[in-house]
């Protein structure tokens, strides 16, 4: 029973971690917006989710379209994310960070994070309801 509930939250956990990491990369971009020779960090969700999926496919959600995100049952540690991030450095020498654009990205990402949190609390409430009957 506990395992089922754990699996239930696997995807949310992954997305929340990714959002937090993206938040960190944007904050780093804003902090370093005047540093010479700084490589802009960028996280693209599609690629990471695909990569994580390809690590292990055991139990999948029923996907009707090839672009749907499927659930992977393996827990992914923070190290795996960081390895993926390290490979995604862009090799521009000149620092070209637009502060306003980064701010907007940050706002968007933080709103998505809050959306994710409210989805999780809704799920938890549903589980409570199912247990209590």
């Amino acid at each position, binding site marked *: 029973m506990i395992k089922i509930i754990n699996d239930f939250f696997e995807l949310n956990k992954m997305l929340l*971690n990714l959002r*937090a*990491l993206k*938040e*960190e990369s944007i*904050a*780093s971009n*804003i*902090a*370093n*917006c*005047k*540093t*010479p020779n*700084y490589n802009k*960090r960028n996280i693209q969700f599609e690629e990471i989710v695909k990569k994580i999926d390809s690590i292990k496919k055991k139990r999948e959600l029923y996907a009707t379209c090839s672009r749907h995100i499927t659930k992977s049952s393996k827990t992914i540690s*923070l*190290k795996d994310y*960081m390895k993926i991030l*390290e490979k995604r450095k862009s090799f521009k020498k000149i620092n070209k960070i637009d*502060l306003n654009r980064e*701010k907007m990205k*940050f*706002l968007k990402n*933080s709103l998505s*994070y*809050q959306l994710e*949190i409210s989805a*999780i*609390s809704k799920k*938890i409430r549903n589980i409570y309801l199912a247990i209590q009957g």
Partner: protein
Amino acid sequence: MSLTNILDICSSAMNVEEKKIEIHTNNIANSESIESKNGKFYPYKAKMAILENYKKDIYSPEIVRIKKIVNTKDPYKKIYNPNHPLSDSKGYLKLSNVNYLNETVNYLNASKRYQANLEIVQTIKYIILKTIDISK
């Protein structure tokens, strides 16, 4: 937790911007002062900070810090003032190379970036609080 890492990043950036604001105000304040080196007098040279990004290892946050503070390479201003005790044999006096316009604009930019980082801190604080009471 990467959300608390963001607080480290922002605090480092805010430190750097504060330091930069200090340097620019210092430049403006000292634009008419004179330094003495080995018994000789020189007009004040404008300073500027060079930044670098610093990372302890691949899992630690990427903070920003001041690499070094250097003198700018602008030439000294020269005015004709034969009455001044420090003017040369032809009557020209060297003045410091502080450019008021540059300093003011840099100062405003630094304070803008400081504000941006402060906004991030506020947002992150709110998000962390929301994450804590996730099941309420």
